């Protein structure tokens, strides 16, 4: 697709035409909404408007868009997003570039950190086996630049950018999409009439208001994708582990946001967590697929697919994990697969109806969605995971997750998400605790730190969304605090040094009892 066609679609400024278009759109939308509601009311699966969409918008870059780079100075004009009033609308770029007290946007420093001592040491270790002339600096290495600056290959069709352009770090185009095509269109009034999918597919603009699209953009670096990854070599060389969780990242205390959420905070936090779980799972599966397909060039098995602390722990007789024979479903000696991104896969469908209108997902649909994932776990937890089988299963899982995500995305766009209430919060809490504990209500289903931490983060998202210690779920506080304490790393460590899963089990059991009383007193 080229610029001519894009120009044809540029919205008109004629008020009559605009009004007509608005009315027609409004009628169509109302009719569709009514249809949807009727579908829901009659218990049928919602007749999706874009049933053909097997992929959510926001995945990768649209194949048809290969624009050239335009610097973020285009965004930072004072009449556009660079008005200089940090934190105010119209000053998005100014806010992104600013520091306010101890707050700032870390994406701004993504490139400059490539020059620090830690980055230099990472490269020293990564290239230790290479002759001196082949050793690279981090700021010259595409492996690093793909996520620490604008991705030339992905966004700009391999156009080589200047160091000046790269030095902006993860700037506007990185998340909002290569802007050359939509730059002059997006402030035209008709822009608003385009659907999000049109904006993405025809203009390469990522509609980040949609949390699915937004989290997909985040995950392409913070989880990884087909050509970006932080693998075990990079981590062993000193790069921090990627353990993305959307709600936690959004609410990072020192993150200076250059936008404000339209949603009430309580709804936003729970949705960010919930959608983030699905998106991250999808991204992790897609990453595994690309790793398994690329085994000729890439490590296999890739250790970063496994639970870090399954191996990275001190071992011995006094460590409780090894000496509870009935505590795990998997074989001893294998690395548990993807305990970070896939630990909640089974409980998410059970939580769905607390977050999205339309009742529970039909059981056969859940089965269809999760079956390849379960098979994938079995294969990955064999002592010899077969790359070809893994690639195939991961491909199947990704296709199903993509189809599911596009439905989730539509639901979000049509406003079919439920507000978070005390009741939905209690229900989510009950589901999460039931997923973490076995039927005996006392032992963990999996004592892996990641598994427990993911359950904690879900519970914490709900608890904080409802106002934390002063909200309607304040009764959770002692159990939530205890659970957090059981997971905290000892000072000076990057791993759970003397992790005691039994402490986590006690905290979850306590929460279960609290949930029972809260339900009873309702």
């Amino acid at each position, binding site marked *: 697709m080229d610029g001519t066609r894009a120009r044809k679609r540029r919205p008109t400024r004629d008020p009559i035409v605009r009004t007509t278009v608005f009315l027609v759109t409004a009628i169509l939308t109302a009719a569709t909404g009514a249809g949807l509601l009727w579908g829901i009311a009659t218990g049928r699966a919602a007749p999706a408007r874009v049933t053909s969409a097997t992929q959510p918008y926001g995945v990768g870059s649209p194949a048809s868009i290969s624009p050239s780079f335009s610097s973020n100075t285009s965004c930072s004009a004072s009449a556009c997003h660079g008005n200089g009033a940090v934190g105010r609308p119209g000053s998005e770029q100014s806010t992104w570039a600013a520091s306010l007290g101890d707050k700032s946007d870390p994406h701004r420093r993504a490139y400059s950190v490539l020059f620090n001592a830690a980055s230099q040491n990472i490269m020293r270790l990564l290239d230790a086996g290479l002759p001196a002339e082949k050793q690279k600096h981090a700021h010259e290495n595409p492996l690093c630049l793909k996520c620490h600056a604008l991705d030339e290959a992905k966004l700009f069709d391999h156009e080589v950018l200047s160091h000046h352009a790269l030095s902006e770090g993860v700037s506007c185009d990185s998340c909002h999409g290569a802007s050359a095509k939509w730059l002059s269109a997006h402030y035209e009034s008709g822009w608003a009439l385009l659907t999000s999918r049109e904006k993405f597919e025809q203009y390469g603009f990522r509609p980040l208001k949609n949390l699915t699209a937004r989290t997909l953009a985040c995950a392409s670096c913070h989880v990884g994708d087909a050509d970006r990854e932080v693998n075990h070599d990079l981590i062993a060389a000193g790069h921090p582990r990627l353990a993305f969780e959307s709600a936690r990242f959004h609410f990072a205390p020192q993150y200076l946001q250059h936008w404000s959420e339209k949603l009430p905070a309580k709804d936003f936090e729970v949705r960010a967590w919930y959608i983030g779980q699905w998106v991250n799972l999808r991204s992790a599966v897609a990453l595994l697929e690309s790793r398994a397909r690329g085994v000729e060039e890439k490590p296999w098995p890739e250790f970063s697919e496994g639970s870090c602390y399954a191996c990275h722990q*001190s071992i*011995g007789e006094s460590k409780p994990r090894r000496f509870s024979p009935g505590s795990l479903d998997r074989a001893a000696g294998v690395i548990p697969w993807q305990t970070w991104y896939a630990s909640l896969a089974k409980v998410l469908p059970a939580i769905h109806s607390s977050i999205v209108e339309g009742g529970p997902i039909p059981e056969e649909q859940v089965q269809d969605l999760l079956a390849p994932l379960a098979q994938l776990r079995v294969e990955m937890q064999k002592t010899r995971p077969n790359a070809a089988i893994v690639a195939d299963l991961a491909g199947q899982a990704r296709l199903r997750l993509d189809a599911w995500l596009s439905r989730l995305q539509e639901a979000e766009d049509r406003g079919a998400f439920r507000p978070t209430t005390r009741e939905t919060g209690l229900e989510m809490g009950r589901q999460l605790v039931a997923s973490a504990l076995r039927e005996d209500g006392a032992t963990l289903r999996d004592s892996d730190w990641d598994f427990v931490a993911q359950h904690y983060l879900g519970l914490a998202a709900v608890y904080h969304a409802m106002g934390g210690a002063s909200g309607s779920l304040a009764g959770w506080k002692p159990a939530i605090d205890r659970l957090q304490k059981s997971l905290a790393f000892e000072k000076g460590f990057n791993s759970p040094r003397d992790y005691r899963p039994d402490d986590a089990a006690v905290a979850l059991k306590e929460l279960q009892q609290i949930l029972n009383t809260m339900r009873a007193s309702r």
Partner: protein
Amino acid sequence: MSARVVVPVAFLVLACLLWRAYAEAPPTIEPRGASPAAAKSPAPLGAQGCSATGCHGHPVANSLTSSPEDSCWRSASTHWQAVDPHRSAYAVLDSTLAKDIVTRLARGDSSWRSPHDSRCLACHTNPALASDDAAAAFGISKESLTRLRSEGVSCEACHGNASNWLVPHLQWNSPVARTADHASVGFAPLFDLGQRALACAGCHVGAPAHGDTPARDMNHDMIASGHPRLNFDFAEYQRRLPPHWLEKNGDPQAKEKWPSVQNTPGVESRAWLIGTIAKAEAASRLLADRAKRSRLEIAAAPWPEFSESNCYACHHNLLPESWRRADPSYLQGRNPGSASWQTLWPFQASIDLQRELPEWKGAASQKALNALLHTHRADASAVQSAATTLADEFRSARIALAAKNEAQSKQILLHLLKGDALSNTRPLDWDEAGQAYLAFLSYLRDGPDAARKLLESKHLTPLGESLRFVPGSSSPGLFEPRRIRDRFQQLRGELP
């Protein structure tokens, strides 16, 4: 005492004395198990075949209270019964730990049912009895087999099944013919230190299947299920094992020069040197076998097999500032995220031992194997062939070193301790430091008592303490290689 007993006993004593008078450098015996299996496997007779009062079961075992002497063979069985840990090898299979291990193993592989599985028995009794078909193979009842197995790792586990040599060995009288005599009837030549170390390594490292003996393979699944890691060091294990034998030393004057030949200078160094090479040989053979079995259609072995790696390369807590990342030379050219293969100090791929150990010609083979293993996808078939080549190199070195006497061995070890394998340029990890520590220990044990005690208390004991695990832990916790390296340098400074 009846003549039936006295005559053979006198014969053997005489034989021993004669041998002591005539024997020269330790003979080379090659190799048990490598030749095609005998047409009919020798049958097991059990410990009771040895433990008659007139044979090896004399009720008075002086070796329990003092150094073994010439007549200690008479009470070897009594001694073994009283204090040898191998005796309880079978009984531990009934422990709670053993049952827990199998419960955990069964979760990944439903073929695991009980600790009396042949994969456990392969080392927890006489390996020749471990196979499920053993009763049929030896024409004995299931009950008899269980009784024989229940003796644990008894006489025949190490010396070989006795049916072919029980009678002949009573009649041997020439120490010169010792090697030939043993070989003629399949009596394990444990008097050869290299062969003895290989026999120990068969279980304490592992070994491929041969003849009726199943593979002895204690792998990562078993360790993760609770089995202790195998940390074999021949010299140290031998020091800890109360000996029921008298060392058949090559030096004819040894007996006169030293109160007990056990204390001949160089004995410990020689044991360490030969034992270390034998361990490396066994580890390479096991790796080749694992690579081979990983390609089987049915019951394939895991690949990569994690227990081939240095345990603490993965099993450590993570620190923001780790010594592992401080110095790229630690990696020795491998990718930072890969796990290094077996630590077989001083045989490191990056160190050329030609100067210190001319008998070692396998540096290139070792480099080739490491290059394969330190890529992220070690091709099992290539590894099998490279590991076999390396095992053969270790075997040649072992044979060459077994021909050295104690004084020569001590000199070789001294060169190793002073050489590049412990230079100041690269941080040592726990496995390397532990093995170098044991090498020093062996070397110092061969020195004069006063000097030894001084060096041990001044340097070696603190070094050992800093390598010790905190109680309840099976890993080094916060290991500080810089301090360890400094201590080694101080110790090296005191060497002649």
